[in-house]
């Protein structure tokens, strides 16, 4: 399998350097606020907590990407399992341990297919796992609640297994690092941009019943920033390919921008329906793992198939590394 050096691509160097710089500047600003007594103590505490979480999260997100494809696939598997745990405890799916176990198996299997670089199995696992989840609890002869537990199991597999595993599969491409770093950072930046534009401009709410804190100005501002940033980075990453045309690059940016916000709103809808504020407590200042990574859930498959359509993903790499054939 062809492998590239960690910092072979200038976009990789740029994103890592920019991330470190942003963290340093943020620490400097919050430090200055603290020294000068600006803002309420609660706000400063909240900002320090968020920064602390980012200092822990960013190495955990970017580290595996820099280390290599096996690390990416391992990290995505763990991320999928962590998301599933929060999801099943929030929705009550954990009270159906057999369905939860089948989703776990599905997540592990689809990431194995990525590790094996077996695209046929990777794609086949979507309907196969859905079938297994549908069949799984029938032998128990307990039709009561069947629709709910099966539907929740399928949704969980789609989001945390089949969906997220597209990031794993992308890691088979020798030039995966700048692409994954671009997706991880721009999706995170989309959240920050929506918050910032919403605070600076204000105005009418976007979907007040779903997410009372989001405004139309924040959503549009974030969409513009994300679209342009992704288009710009993709121009540098995919130069010389059929994708490197302004309209395709802007469309790619738009897909990532809309996908990021749609993922956020999707989780807000789930939380509102259940009546909870956060999915977990593991990340101080953020909530749960899902509260942080919701924007990535829909972006991963959409970005993968867009890139695959124009450029291909790991087309020249050997397939079925583990299973052979």
């Amino acid at each position, binding site marked *: 399998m062809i492998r590239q050096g960690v910092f072979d691509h200038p976009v990789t160097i740029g994103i890592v350097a920019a991330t470190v710089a942003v963290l340093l500047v943020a620490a400097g600003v919050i430090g200055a606020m603290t020294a000068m007594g600006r803002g309420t103590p609660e706000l400063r505490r909240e900002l320090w907590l968020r920064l602390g979480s980012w200092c822990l999260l960013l190495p955990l997100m970017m580290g595996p990407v820099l280390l290599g494809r096996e690390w990416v696939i391992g990290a995505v598997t763990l991320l999928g399992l962590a998301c599933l745990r929060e999801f099943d*405890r929030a929705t009550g799916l954990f009270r159906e341990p057999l369905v939860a176990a089948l989703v776990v198996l599905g997540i592990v299997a689809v990431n194995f297919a990525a590790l094996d670089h077996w695209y046929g199995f990777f794609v086949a696992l979507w309907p196969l796992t859905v079938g297994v989840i549908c069949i799984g609890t029938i032998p128990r002869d307990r039709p009561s609640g069947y629709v709910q537990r099966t539907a929740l199991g399928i949704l969980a597999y789609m989001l945390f297994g089949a969906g997220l595993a597209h990031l794993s599969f992308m890691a088979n491409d020798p030039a995966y690092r700048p692409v994954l770093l671009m997706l991880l950072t721009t999706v995170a930046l989309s959240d920050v941009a929506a918050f910032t534009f919403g605070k600076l401009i204000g105005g009418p709410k976007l979907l007040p019943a779903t997410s009372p804190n989001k405004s139309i100005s924040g959503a549009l501002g974030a969409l513009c920033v994300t679209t342009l940033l992704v288009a710009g980075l993709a121009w540098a990453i995919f130069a010389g390919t059929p994708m490197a045309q302004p309209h395709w690059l802007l469309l790619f940016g738009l897909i990532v921008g809309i996908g990021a916000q749609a993922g956020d709103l999707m989780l807000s809808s789930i939380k509102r329906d259940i009546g909870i504020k956060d999915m977990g407590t593991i990340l101080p200042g953020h909530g749960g793992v899902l509260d942080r990574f919701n924007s990535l859930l829909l972006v991963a498959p959409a970005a993968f198939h867009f890139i695959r359509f124009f450029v291909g993903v790991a087309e020249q790499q050997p397939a079925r590394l583990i299973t052979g054939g």
Partner: protein
Amino acid sequence: MDFRLRPARDHGMEAADRLRSLSRERGLGSILLGGAWRRVLRGYLALFHRLRVEGRENLPPPPFVLVANHASHLDALVLSAVLRGEAARRGHALAAGDTFFGSTLSSAFAAYAVNALPVWRKRTRASEIATLRERLVEDGLVYILFPEGTRARDGVMAAFQPGIGALVAGTEVPVVPCFLDGAFAAWPPQARFPKPGRLRLWIGAPLRFADVPAGRAGWEAVAVRCEAAVRALAR
């Protein structure tokens, strides 16, 4: 339509608080760990204590409460090991908080392997009893309870406390009396580790207290009947 879109009762709790919470609901990881632990336990009890169980057919489907004499740490291990299937997955030993939930490590073991819930002796609040009672009925749980309150230091069974009554009086939840023989000899409270020795468990017919009023007098009446049923099994 019995699926309820409802978060875990312990949703939003910090990990350490969750371990010690009476609202802790177990997920897939805890069920798998607990299942592995019970298999190890059954092997140990069969090999080192040649455990014999009589009256297993008296165990009803969940929810129910197992009550027994208490002279050794082996008691809770034996009662949790004899449960099977759904009853085993829903089984919680009500364990002394000061003994089993002192540190985070011991709490994690008690919570994940044994699936114990902490009871804080002499300072149990009414709200905690109410939570245990509510969960017993609503979640269809199985409690393993030793109504004497502590291990008998001389191996002689003491009077039952009325706490068992507060859990079941006025409900349809049956109480299953059990008597365990040989645990005091194998692992008395004074010993640090157990030694091999025969164990024999008798499981009696379930008792029901739906018509007993939920009040002090009713609770004491429940305790008296449970104690008599356990003593009747001792032979």
